[in-house]
């Protein structure tokens, strides 16, 4: 093979070749990244397209092409009216569970983390050991005994029965103790004390504004975790109107293949899935920064 003309020894040729190589590498990189992006986006795209089809079209039209005219309005009214409107409850319940658990988890973890970081007291080491040790316990191992314990206490099938266990967030305590130790200066606390502020008031007026970004991160992690949780509410809840979206949609899905199950179920499950992820997907670009900070926290500190 003869070398192309630009492959000569001239400077112009070398610069040109280097630029061409860079462009080739850029194109190859972009192509690889695009393939991965397609893998991520295909199911989400399909969900949007499929949610506009009726059950017949789901099986007869091209999987990845929209129908001749969308059936969103019919599908929507079917979704919210099926079985006396259970879906409305699930949507509301998911919101209640996630926001209550996240609020409580954030408040309790922030107080505890701040207390561990800024005070000396006997038993402090023990509390820290407890928090770190509990990070080792896989969460799902506790679900079945939790059910039995809650059954004993009469907490199964209640809102608080789901919210309270999810408010226990050892990672949040660990996160906040490091965050508070680094972010809240002691001199600020001291001077607030000099002014006669009580300890809780110091936390509320001095600590809270400084800790707020960390608290947002904790809130989001806990909110998403609760919103996405399935195992725990599945085990703890028995009444349809108490279900969160995950448990409710799974209950619908389990009757999909039963003989005589209503045909609208396919479009209900598909549109129901879309509605349950849409708020988070839309907000995600704005939240990504906060969420990523929480995730990378454990991995990157002490790198």
């Amino acid at each position, binding site marked *: 093979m003869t070398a192309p003309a630009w492959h000569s020894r001239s400077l112009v040729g070398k610069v040109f070749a280097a630029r061409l190589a860079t462009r080739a590498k850029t194109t190859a990189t972009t192509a690889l990244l695009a393939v991965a992006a397609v893998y991520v986006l295909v199911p989400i795209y399909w969900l949007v397209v499929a949610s506009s089809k009726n059950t017949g079209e789901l099986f007869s039209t091209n999987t990845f092409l929209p129908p001749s005219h969308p059936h969103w309005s019919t599908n929507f009214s079917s979704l919210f009216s099926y079985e006396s409107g259970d879906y409305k409850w699930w949507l509301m319940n998911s919101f209640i569970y996630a926001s209550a658990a996240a609020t409580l988890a954030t408040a309790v973890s922030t107080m505890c983390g701040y207390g561990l970081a800024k005070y000396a007291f006997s038993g402090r080491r023990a509390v820290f050991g407890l928090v770190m040790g509990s990070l080792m316990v896989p969460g799902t191992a506790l679900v*079945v005994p939790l059910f039995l314990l809650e059954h004993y206490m009469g907490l199964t099938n209640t809102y608080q029965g789901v919210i*309270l266990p999810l408010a226990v967030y050892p990672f949040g305590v660990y996160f906040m103790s490091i965050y508070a130790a680094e972010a809240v200066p002691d001199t600020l606390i001291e001077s607030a004390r000099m002014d006669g502020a009580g300890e809780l008031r110091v936390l509320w007026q001095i600590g809270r504004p400084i800790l707020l970004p960390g608290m947002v991160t904790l809130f989001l992690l806990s909110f998403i975790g609760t919103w996405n949780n399935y195992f725990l509410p599945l085990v703890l809840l028995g009444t349809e109107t108490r279900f969160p979206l995950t448990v409710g949609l799974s209950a619908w899905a389990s009757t999909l293949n039963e003989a005589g199950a209503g045909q609208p179920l396919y479009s209900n*499950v598909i549109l129901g899935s879309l509605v349950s992820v849409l708020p988070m997907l839309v907000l995600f670009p704005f939240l990504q920064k906060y969420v990523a900070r929480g995730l990378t926290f454990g991995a990157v500190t002490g790198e």
Partner: protein
Amino acid sequence: MAVRGAEERAALPVPPSALGRATRGNQRLRQRQGHSGLAMTAPFLGLFAVFFAGPLIYSIILSLRSPLTGAYAGLLNYRATYHNGAFWAGVVRMAYFGAIQVTVMIGLAIGLALLLDGPYCRGRRIFSLVYFLPYAVPGVIAALMWGFLLEPDLDVALKVPHLLGLTSSPLQPLDYRLSLYSIMLIVTWEWTGYNMTILVTSLSNVPRQVLEAAKVDGASEFSIAARIKLPMIRRTIMFITILSIIGTLQLFNEPVILNEVASVGNALTPNQIIYNTAFAFGNEQTAAAQSVVLALITIVATIAFYGIVRTRMRPLATTRRAR
């Protein structure tokens, strides 16, 4: 997070700032502040005692009781678990699952993170956002979407090989022989971006001077990635690998949902088996023992992996220190 716990325990607790300067004069004040500190941890400790420590202790007590009479029965349930072939088949299945899925996923995450961190990447922000999106999708929904997409009646793409004459029938990825691999596909979809996000942050902490120096020395972009970036983020890689192993052993949502959509089997994973033992067979005592055993397996697997990688890593660490 789990291993971080063990690893950081030596380095923590953070030195309490208010301490140190305590003199005899203000000792009482310090003590009062100490009480406030304890009081601030109280709400967490209260919830922890009831909803974390409580179930943990209860499951151990329960696991020592007879399923029939409820009386103390020693290690009866543990013996039953030891002889439960389905349970161990589930554990082995998850080991096989993890060996393939975790390897592929971590490899993909490393590859994508290095591409995003390299100089040939355009549209870094949009790509990292797209990859991270599945984190916002519940596992249940992910399994439902893929459950439909892997159904030949619903997905025209699965018919293509058949129409081209390559296979005798449309692809059936939810067939009992392939369903485990379909779950791998779903779990990889869900968690690759999450792991990549952690790696990208870790990569951004690699000192830029080191990379510049390598470039001046004439190192290619590939060898910079392989010889400098990778070794410097190896702790993070270990961390996400351990998290993934723990996640694999806990697998529940995806097989349960796929079973609802396509009957792939209701006892694929240990957590499914524990669920069935407790609720389908009403044997809470044996289920508690199985939970304890699964938790122990998880902890042992974590420590074992950590140990293996640490001994392997040692020479690498020395090289780096020498540099």
